[in-house]
Each structure stands twice: as C-alpha cells, then as structure tokens.
C-alpha cells in the first residue's frame, strides 16, 4: 500500500522494481483472447453437441467472440488493475515506461487520448486504402480488381463501418476530447479514468473484428448492416454487429467519462458561461452518445440473435422496415456526433487566430445544444422512398429546420472573422477549408431534404458526395486543423509552415476534385453500392478515381508531416498561439497530473483587445513567462 500511495502522489518517479514483471500486455491480451475464444466456443459446442456440426458454428463464433473480448480486456491489464484491486489486492506498482506505456491499460487521460488518436489514424489509413481499392474498381465499368460484387460490397461495408465508428466518432471525441477536456477545464484527471483506460482497448478489438469479418463469409449490406438483407447474407455480418458493438461501447465509455468530468471537475471559477467552446462541443456530443448508442447496441444485439436463432423479426413475417427505423433513429444523431466537434473546433480556434473576441458566443453554444436536441427528430429523412406519405411533411420540416442551429456556428465564425486581424496559419487555413467544405455538404443537403428531389437523389452518388463533404470536408479537415493547432501542446514542438500549407492545399484541391464529381455522377444516374455500372458513366468515374488517388496521397503527406513535427519538429515556446484557454497554462507536454496548482478562472477565454480581462489567476507550474 505504501507503494500505491507513492504512485498516486504522482510527483515522485514510480519505483521501477516490479511486483512481478508481466508479459508485454498486448501479447498477453492476444494470448488470453485466444484462450477465451476457445473456451467459450467449446462450451457452446458441448452444450449443443452433434457429431455433424462444425467446431465453430454461428453460435460458437458469437460466444467465442465474447470470450475473446473478455480475455483481451483482462490481458491488457484489466486483471491486475481492475479485478484484483476489487478483491482487495493492492494495485501493482509496476507500470510500463516510455513508449511502452501506450501499450497497456493506462489511467492518464493524455495517454488514453493519444491511444485513441493512434487507433483512429491507423484505421483511417486502412479504411482509406480500402477506399482507394474501391475507386480503382470504379475506374472501369466491368469487374477488374473485385471479380465478385460481394467482395466489392463487403469492402464498401468495412470502409464505411471503420471510418464511421473508429475515425469519425472517435478521433475528435475519444482522442482530442480525452486529451484536451481535463486540461481545458483545469482538472487533474478524468472521473472514471480506469474505465476510460479499458474502453480504449475495445477499439482495436472492434477494428480487428470488423476487418476480418469476411473470413466468416462476405456481407453486402454496407455500413448499415441492414435487415432483412443481413439475415440472408454471409455469416461475417455477425462480426460486423459484434465489432460495432465493441466500438460503440468504447465511445459510450468516453461519453460517460467526459460528461461526468465536465460536470464535476471544472476548476474554480469555470462557470458554464465561461466553458470553452470545444468543451461545449464535447459535452453535447457526449450527451448525444449517452442517449443514442445504447439504442443501436440493443438493435445490433437483436439482429445478432435474429441471425443465429433465427427469429424472423425483420423480414416479411415480422416488420421488414423495422431495422432501418431502429438504425436511422441512431444513425442521424450519429452524424451530428461526428460533426459537432468540428463546429466547436472552428469557434475554438478562430478567435485565437484572428485576435478578436468570439462573436455571439451564447448563440454559438445554443447552436450546438439545439443541434443536439433536434438531431433525434430528423432521422426518417433517410427513408423518404419507403415511408408513409403522411410522415413526409413533418420529417422534411425538422430536417430543414436543423440547418438553423447548424448555421449558428457560421454566424459566430463569420462575425468573429469580420474586421479581425487574421493570422492565416495552417490550422486557420484548415478551418476555412472545413467551413467551405461543410457548407457544400450542408447546401447539397437542402436538395435531399426536399422530398420530391429526394425521390430522385436518394441512394445515388449525390448522397455519397453529400455525406463525404460533411464528414471528410467538415470533420476530417477540422481534425487536421486541431492536430496542427495542438501539436505544440502534445509534444512541445511545431510543424513546418510551408509543408503544413502545402498539405492543406493539396488535400483541399484533391478532395473537391474527387467529391464534386460525385454530385454530377449522381445526377447522371450513378447509384450506390455498385461495382459495375452502365458504360456511359465510365469516363467521369475514371477522372474521379484519379483525383481520389491524389487525395489519398495528400492525407499521407499530412500524416508524415505531423509525425515528423511531433518527433523532430522545431521546439516552440509554451504558448505559441498566445491562446487564453487553460490547456496553455501548463507545460507542453503537460505533467502527469496537468497542473501543480489548479488555475482559478476569473473571466471568459475569448476576450481580446485592449483592456480585455486576463481569464486566469494563480496559473502555476511552467506557465509561459
């Protein structure tokens, strides 16, 4: 216990003498996952024994997966750091040091944030390469790379699922949110730091499950896993449901942890009126996640049972549209879970870069809150081509209306930029590009929100272009802006302005060249989920693919540049942007418990100009001189 007390003090180095040096946690987790799979699969095989049944049946694959998940989480550190302490044993004092601490169960929100960012980035590369393969196939109207449509459709499904549940939902929320929120609210750690440390390891489990699901049989439903098609699809769909279950569970833990932390751990003087915009974004996203993720997890477990029993819940004997309804009930809030962090990031960074007080701050916050509340009322606009006529008018009404609170983000950003002194740095450039891209995503949404036009545009490439503009154009560009902006915080180093701007312009041009074409393709009759298509569409698809390859390379340039800057970039002063928020009031990278003495907030963070009040008193521990 003495050792434990020392470890919690945190300022002294942890004693390096281990209780007993364990195996590298990731290796042990893999081993235990294998054991867990074999044990639970064997149990299911024994319970329902038949000499003719295969050793791994559908039921066994599901049961074994849960065994593997438990083994994985225990092996990564759940056994020593959660189970044993619950039984009265002391928490082991030994922790991996240096880079190895990223490969075990961590409790430091900064380590967890970087773990999430790493998993998101790695998955972005994998799912991005799948997109490149898809574009390669679409260069020709006949089968080339994917000889069978089901392998192409399976690639579409894995691309969408991984991008959605491991990148779009995770990078800014689990990654930047975990790292930044405690720093920005003046907290030393998050409330549920142990649960948070376990939750991050659900991500690689989920990613591997989804990525290797075709081994059990191809599934063709796209990222929705929708019934009744899923019921007659390959068995791989089971690992889609289970993989997404793990991924959503991870985000749910992030949400519960961050929302609780924001409510209970704000430092003295950090009232709701002074809460940073980015933290408001994380709070609204967290609430959305808490509301909607349990709903989709329940649906996916229902669909899993429906598949292995089978129950006939979602086919002609049950309610064939039921799954789609359950899915989109979550699915539309999900896209706001993706995009609200981006909207919040704009108004976080713009005042800093323009040296001007944030314009209409209450409206910017209200916009985020109203988007959160309205997002559960628009979902059926994904089903205009199969709903009752009487439902069309209300759902199109709410869908049009949600553009008003979304527009508040633009209102605040534009008002701040007007008459400002804008420093066009790489993060600012990415923010401007994100605002441009997301606006195209929004305004093309006007067309699909209109029911008559939707009856033509639904399920064409128009829709594919529309959501890639909102998600890549809005969220990924803002993610890159945030990465460049906070790079000095992560590492104490900075990027090269020339390469940063080149990377920004590169992805911006290639992105627009790629996805602008999607709108025209959609208008010309190109539908979704096809690996082969009528020959008249080939020339335009060919050039779209060429642009897409440039886009892929552009993301590679940014990734290499950020990694280089993180490791080897020039060192910078503590607060290179002269920002006022709390994360810049401590050293970079911050110490284990962030602040030696907690800062006290006495004014808002977005006041600039002569005589603007300083927001913080008693800033200690390596604050900028």
């Amino acid at each position, binding site marked *: 216990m003495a050792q434990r007390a020392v470890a919690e003090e945190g300022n002294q180095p942890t004693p390096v003498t281990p209780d007993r040096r364990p195996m590298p946690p990731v290796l042990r987790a893999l081993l235990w996952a294998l054991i867990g799979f074999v044990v639970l699969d064997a149990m299911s095989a024994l319970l329902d024994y038949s000499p003719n049944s295969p050793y791994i049946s559908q039921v066994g694959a599901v049961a074994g997966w849960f065994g593997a998940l438990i083994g994985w989480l225990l092996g990564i550190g759940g056994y020593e750091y959660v189970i044993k302490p619950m039984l009265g044993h002391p928490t082991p004092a030994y922790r991996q040091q240096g880079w190895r601490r990223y490969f075990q169960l961590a409790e430091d929100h900064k380590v967890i944030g970087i773990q999430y960012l790493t998993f998101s980035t790695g998955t972005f590369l994998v799912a991005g390469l799948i997109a490149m393969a898809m574009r390669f196939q679409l260069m020709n109207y006949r089968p080339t790379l994917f000889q069978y449509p089901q392998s192409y459709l399976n690639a579409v499904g894995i691309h969408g699922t991984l991008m959605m549940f491991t990148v779009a939902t995770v990078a800014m929320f689990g990654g930047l949110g975990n790292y930044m929120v405690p720093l920005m609210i003046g907290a030393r750690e998050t409330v549920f730091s142990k649960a948070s440390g376990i939750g991050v390891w659900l991500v690689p489990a989920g990613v591997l499950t989804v990525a290797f699901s075709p081994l059990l049989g191809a599934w*063709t439903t796209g990222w929705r896993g929708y019934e009744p098609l899923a019921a007659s699809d390959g068995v791989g769909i089971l690992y889609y449901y289970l993989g997404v279950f793990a991924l959503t569970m991870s985000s749910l833990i992030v949400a519960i942890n961050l929302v609780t932390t924001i409510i209970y751990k704000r430092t003295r003087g950090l009232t709701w009126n002074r809460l940073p915009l980015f933290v408001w974004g994380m709070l609204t996203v967290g609430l959305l996640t808490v509301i909607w993720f349990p709903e989709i997890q329940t649906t996916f477990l229902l669909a899993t049972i429906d598949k292995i029993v089978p129950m006939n819940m979602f086919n002609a004997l049950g309610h064939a549209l039921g799954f789609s309804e359950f899915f989109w009930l979550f699915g539309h809030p999900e896209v706001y879970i993706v995009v609200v962090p981006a909207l919040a990031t704009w108004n976080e960074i713009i005042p800093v870069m323009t040296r001007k*007080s944030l314009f209409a701050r209450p409206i910017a916050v209200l916009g985020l809150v109203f988007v959160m509340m309205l997002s559960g009322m628009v979902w059926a606009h994904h089903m205009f081509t199969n709903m009752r006529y009487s439902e069309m008018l209300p759902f199109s009404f709410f869908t049009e209306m949600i553009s008003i609170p979304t527009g508040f983000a633009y209102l605040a950003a534009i008002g701040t930029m007007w008459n400002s002194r804008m420093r066009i740095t790489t993060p600012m450039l990415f923010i401007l590009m994100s605002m441009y891209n997301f606006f195209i995503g929004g305004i093309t949404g006007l067309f699909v929100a*209109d029911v*008559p036009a939707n*009856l*033509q545009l639904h399920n064409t490439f128009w829709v594919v272009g529309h959501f890639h503009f909102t998600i890549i154009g809005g969220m990924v560009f803002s993610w890159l802006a945030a990465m460049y902006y906070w790079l000095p915080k992560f590492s104490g180093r900075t990027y090269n302005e020339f390469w940063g701007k080149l990377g920004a312009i590169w992805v911006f041009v290639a992105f627009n060249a790629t996805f602008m074409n999607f709108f025209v393709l959609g208008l010309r009759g190109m539908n979704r989920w096809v690996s082969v298509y009528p020959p008249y569409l080939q020339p335009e698809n060919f050039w779209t693919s060429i642009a897409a390859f440039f886009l892929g390379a552009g993301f590679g340039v940014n990734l290499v540049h950020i990694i280089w800057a993180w490791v080897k970039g020039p060192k910078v002063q503590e607060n290179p942007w002269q920002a006022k928020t709390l994360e810049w009031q401590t050293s970079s990278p911050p110490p284990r418990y962030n602040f030696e003495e907690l800062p006290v907030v006495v004014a808002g963070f977005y006041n600039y100009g002569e005589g603007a009040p300083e927001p913080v008193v008693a800033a200690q521990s390596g604050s900028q001189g």
Partner: protein
Amino acid sequence: MANVVVFGIMWIVLSLLGEWGASAWIHSAPQGTGVFWGTMSNLGVITAGAFDFILIIAVPIFAFVVLMLVFSMIRFGVRKNSTDKGDAKDQTRANKAFIGIWIVASILLNIFIWLHPNASGLEQVFAAQRLSPSQKPLIVDVTARQWEWIFSYPQYGITQSLDASGNDVLYLPKNRPVKFVMRSFDPFHTYDTTTDVIHSFWVPAFGVKLDVVPGETRTLVLTPTQLSSTEQDPMLRVQCAEVCGPGHPYMEANIHIVTASAFAKWTKAQASGS
C-alpha cells in the same frame, strides 16, 4: 463601413453570375429542362423542378458564405512581414441587427423552401397517384426478387415480358398513366416466398424511385411522356437502388417507351409468345 459596401457589391455581382451559370446549366440538359432528368415522366417534371428551384435559391446563400471566407482571408489577413502583431482594433462581440437578420432570414428561408418546392411538389406527386377508371391506366405488376425485375401485364395476359434474348423488359406506351403494383418476393422459391429483401424501383430518367418492401404491396402511378428506349438514353432503365446482395449491381432491366399502336402490337406478340 467601406468593407460592408464592397462586400455587398461583390456579393450581388457574384450571385448574379452564379444564377446565370446555374440557369445555363439547368437548360443545358439534353431534355431541355431539369438537370439530367426531367421530361420523360410527369413525376420527373415535378422532382426536377424542385431541384432546379432549390438550386436557384442556394446560389446567393452559397455565394455569401464563400465570398465571406475569401474576403476575410484577403481583406483581414495579416501579412507575414506586417509590423503590427497585436489584437484586432474592432472587438465587437455582438451586433443585434446582424444576428437578428441572420436568424429571422434563416427561419423564413427554411419555412419557404419547406412549403415550396417541398410541400407543393408533394401535393402534386400525391395528386398524380389518384386515378379515375376513365383514364384507363395500364397496370404493370412488378415483382422484385434477388436479382431480377419481373414485369407482368394482367390486362393483356402477359405473365412475364421478355425480349428476344430472354431478358426481362418493360414496354410502356407514351402518355398513358401506368400503375406499377410492386411486391418483393421470389416466385421461384415456392417453399419460402418470404425470404426476399428490400429493393428499390428506380428509373433515373423518370426522376422518381420507390422501395419495394417484402410483405407489402406498394403502388406508383406515373405517365411516360416521351418516346425513347434504354438503347437511346441509358438514363431510361430500371435500376435497383437499394443494396440487395451480390447481384445488386446487375439488377436492371431495359425500357422501351413506344406509341400506343406499337404497344398494342407488342402486347399481342408477347401474349402469343408466352
């Protein structure tokens, strides 16, 4: 104030140029109206009209935001070698007139486009679904299965219309209302006809689609208004628009829109051939 005036003039000029471009684009479509679809069915005229109208509305909004981003970058950007690195002089944190106009305008605009072309277009679509017997609609039973469109014409005793090479084909007479009666099931799997999945009946040139849901019978009424065929215009084809399994990309059928007399000749040949 000078900034506001310059911005305002540039916005008006840019919007006018945009409207001119949008209008030219709309009218460049091969059928004369609508962006790439429109005049081949009565419903397509409505949906393409909605698209065109929103495009016209969207141009000035788009011009406003894009111009604002570019204008701010150029006009308010600080040069690298500028000596003045301080905060902005103008620190306005609220402007009631600007915020008020923004909010009121966005609410009004949204209500407006919800009413027109959304609600108004829908009313026309709904009205077009009502038929009186005097209009003598052609009834086509559409069966979607994994992965085939099957068309039968109960009024003419055609159980499955096929072309010379044995592919399913849809023949429609010009200017006569057609009532598609759609079901999703597999007539060849008599032991389990409930196993089929959701398909979507889409003819790109008709500008409309409707999902075909297992266990339900849905109808779509429209009138083809132009002589054409898939060979002449590949937009005129039946294409499944909802992913329905590995055969989804191949789930399409050719269409011929013909004169009433040619249609009568075709129905006789089909009925005797099958």
